């Protein structure tokens, strides 16, 4: 089945002030659709974290959002350095963010687990030096 609404957003590299723009847009969209507020919250948290990863680690990338009759599918991807050890990266508290980013209050190592916690389906694909793709599915009901 094809999606009813399809949106694409650019995610800029290294600009924290713009991280969250895409998730904020999606939140407005879902509000206008009358989606349950809890689902909206989960979607925007998961998407914001994925966006932030692309800003901090991925050197910029894109987010593709598709809304179906019963679910939201989000793909956030970059062509950045990729993740060496996915299992380790998924661990709460593990982070490769440099000190200056931690000092700004980001990079606490909770991002990926936070995405997983808030989505119904979560797939992470990554290859060193090629990039990372995060697939998020959240059901509307």
């Amino acid at each position, binding site marked *: 089945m094809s999606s*009813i609404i399809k949106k694409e957003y650019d995610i800029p590299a290294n600009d924290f002030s713009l991280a*969250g723009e895409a998730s904020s847009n999606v939140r407005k969209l879902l509000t*206008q*659709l*009358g989606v349950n*507020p*809890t689902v*909206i919250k989960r979607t*925007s948290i998961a998407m914001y974290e994925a966006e932030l990863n692309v800003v901090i680690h991925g050197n910029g990338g894109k987010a593709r959002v598709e809304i179906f009759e019963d679910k939201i599918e989000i793909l956030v991807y970059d062509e950045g350095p990729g993740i060496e050890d996915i299992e380790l990266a998924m661990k709460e508290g593990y982070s490769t963010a440099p000190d200056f980013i931690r000092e700004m209050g980001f990079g606490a190592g909770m991002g990926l687990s936070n995405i997983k916690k808030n989505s119904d389906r979560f797939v992470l694909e990554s290859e060193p030096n090629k990039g990372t793709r995060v697939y998020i599915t959240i059901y509307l009901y």
Partner: protein
Amino acid sequence: MTNYFHSVTLEEDKCRGCTNCIKHCPTEAIRVRNGKATIIKERCIDCGECIRVCPYHAKKAVTDPISELSKYPVKVALPAPSLYGQFGQDISRERILKGLLELGFDWVFEVAKAAEIVSDATRRIIGAGNVKKPVISSACPAVVRLVQVRFPNLINNLLKIESPMEVAARIAKQTITERENIPAEEIGIFFISPCAAKVTSVKAPYEKKESFVNGVLSMKDIHIKILEKIKSIPWDFDGDLVSSGAYGVGWAGSGGECSALETPRTLAVHGIHNVINIFEEIVEDRLKNVDFVEALSCTEGCLGGPLTVVNPFVASTNLKWQVNRAKERDFSGENTAADYQDLLWTKDMEYKPILKLDDNMMKAMIKMQKLEEINDGLPGLDCGACGSPSCRALAEDIVRGLAFETDCIFKLREKVSDLADHMKAFEHIYRQKTED
């Protein structure tokens, strides 16, 4: 009372149909149709931004006239703390309160005192721990309404304690009935308000069935009258009228409510558009290490209310003098809320999904698809000439059946130019035929 009472209203003959108000409204609640602004009642949160930006003064806040006082044998004034910022440093709080008495009030009861009680209750609630953090202040009714229509996920973060105005009104009524043996119906409680949102919260409360306040007077209407009375009150007058310390007085400005909580884990934001930005951070779990958020709709907090007289930044300096002087007397032992249970809201707040395109989600999705399509065809200038605040808002109005694509002057120009081309083509054919 209708479902949607609003203090903010339009004076139609003054409205010139410009785009100032539609562009500044934080909930996109205004449209210009047929040359006049109209307020979408369901969306308006009474923040008063439009009152501030209208160059023709066509937007106003409906308040009660001072003549309302005569309806009650006993008249009580509840001055909002922001009133103190409306006078220069040489005018003491005692004189301002005495000025109110000389205007015909029998009692004055400082809302600042009630603010200290609310702060004490807030400290206890946050200390007790079983609340959703960050707790968001409910002191500003425009902000509470904003949460109700735009941030359903934050409804549970709201501090469900009555506002200082309500607490003050309740205490005033109780004290006077008990002490003076006067029946409650004979007591008229009048709040002296810096804003429209407070009027709405009295006439159509969201947190309970009925307000304890009987009337709301505009600070604008009463300011000069107080000044006149103050002239004949000695500068060092002390009638034992004050009942609030520095914290309560400080509530008038941005950061005042936060500092009364005596913890650094607070955040103060003012200006409705800044409030929206912070709320977005909270919704996305981005705001860390903050237990309490003071969010005020107006710049500089209540001192910047649309019904105040003095420039908000000047008022902020004025207030500092009042706060400093208030430090000399401490009322913290009296203004407590050990038993805050009866200050809690008695009505639950429901989310008002005013932004959704359709009650049926599938239909909403199809409308959204159409909306995106229309939006892609619009120029993206957000000029407002169509009467909607942005191109996207026009696209939304079109799918809702409230506007037409040709309301966009650029679309209209395209249409007219197409039409002209068609006519030229017809003319050409016609000429050829006649020449044949």
